[in-house]
């Protein structure tokens, strides 16, 4: 049996979502058609609007429908002298939730990964270089993930920042709060040991 062309098109379109295969797509399509038409219409209109309106902030590359995002527009932060460089918009939210950081961000939207075909030109490093050149920042925090690719990216940016005489720091790696040393992998533990700091500072 075949579905009518539009139903089939809906199922095929839903497959573009991450982790959604043919079966899940079919279930989603039927759920929307049978039980939640209003939710479906809302999803469709929001999706259409989001896909056309949302772009990248011209300063930090985070997603926004305006020219500059909320953080870059904030009067307090505009004058900040610290720049935190992260891989994804999710990382910005995570750091914002700590309430520890009040500087500006730069979102790379990925990391250097030659095998996946992501090179320096895909990470907006030209925009970043302009920001370094502006002289606004005295410190750059490299908050890329503690993976090999994250390290490679951090190194690449550090070299860029060095040309502009900016202080460069890297976020610490170590044992998670509430974790147990016994279950932490050796690689993380050796980072935690080598990066230990004096107890009374």
């Amino acid at each position, binding site marked *: 049996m075949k579905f009518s062309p539009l139903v089939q098109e809906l199922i095929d379109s839903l497959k573009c979502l991450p*982790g959604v295969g043919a079966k899940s797509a079919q279930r989603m399509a039927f759920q929307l058609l049978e039980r939640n038409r209003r939710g479906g219409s809302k999803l469709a209109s929001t999706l259409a609007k989001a896909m056309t309106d949302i772009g990248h902030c011209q300063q930090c590359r985070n997603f926004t429908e305006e020219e500059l995002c909320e953080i870059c527009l904030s009067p307090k932060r505009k004058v900040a002298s610290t720049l935190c460089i992260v891989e994804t918009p999710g990382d910005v939210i995570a750091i914002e939730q700590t309430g520890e950081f009040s500087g500006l961000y730069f979102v790379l939207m990925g990391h*250097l990964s*030659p*095998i*996946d*075909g*992501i*090179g*320096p*030109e895909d990470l907006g490093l030209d925009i970043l270089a302009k920001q370094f050149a502006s002289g606004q920042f005295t410190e750059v925090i490299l908050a890329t993930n503690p*993976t*090999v690719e994250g*390290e*490679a990216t951090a*190194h*690449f940016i550090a*070299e860029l920042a060095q040309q502009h005489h900016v202080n460069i720091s890297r976020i610490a790696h170590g044992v998670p709060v509430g974790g147990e040393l016994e*279950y932490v*992998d*050796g*690689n*993380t533990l*050796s980072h935690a040991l080598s990066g230990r700091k004096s107890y009374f500072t």
Partner: protein
Amino acid sequence: MVEQNAFVLHRRPYRENQLLVDLLTEHDGKVTALVYVGQSKRSIKKGLIQPFLPLKVIMKGEGVFKQITQVDSTAKSFSLIKHSLFSAFYINELMIRLLTEHIACTDLFLQYQKTLTALSQGSAIAPQLRYFELSLLEELGLSFDFSPVFEYDAHYFHYIPEQGFVPVYSALPKNSEQCFSASHLQAIAQQETLYQKPENTNQVNDKEPSEASNAETDAINFTFKLLMRHVINQLLGNKPLNSRKLFSKKS
């Protein structure tokens, strides 16, 4: 279900909490396998599925993708920084692109370990890469026959796949991607015999400059690089290697 040494070459997310991992294993060669990396205490930690970390793995399954059931690190991760890290990416990309899956390549595995060790100890990068490329080509069934370089009286040679070195008698060629200077090739041939003996790996650099000047050595090494690049590019086909971009930006 045999435990064996392995290195992660590349990994990408698969479904909600799995990773699809390309491994270089000691006995099975290149293998693609799935691994669960959940949040529970017992599941395999993502921190272990990292490139350049020496691992012992146990895999099961007969299908296209094996399943990794157990992973343990056997030593500290190789601490690669700056250009040695980019070079290691280059090596990984080469293997992913050129090696066929499930073909044992124990020698290459050992060579990979040696290359990573040398890179992490800060040895000169170029000779390490050339030596690795030679081992890789040998694994793929390609090795250079330098005898024409000594037999023919020509200043330049072409390298043509499946034919080897062919003398060029016209006057125009320079040392380019397609044409290689005879004297350089002769020097490389002598160098390559050194490369062939593993115990001499680290002395390659110390040995050859004794007679030739530094500039001459650089020129020879450059020809060697171009020769390797020429051969590897032909194996790769139209799609260029991405890790080379990391270097071109720097220089």
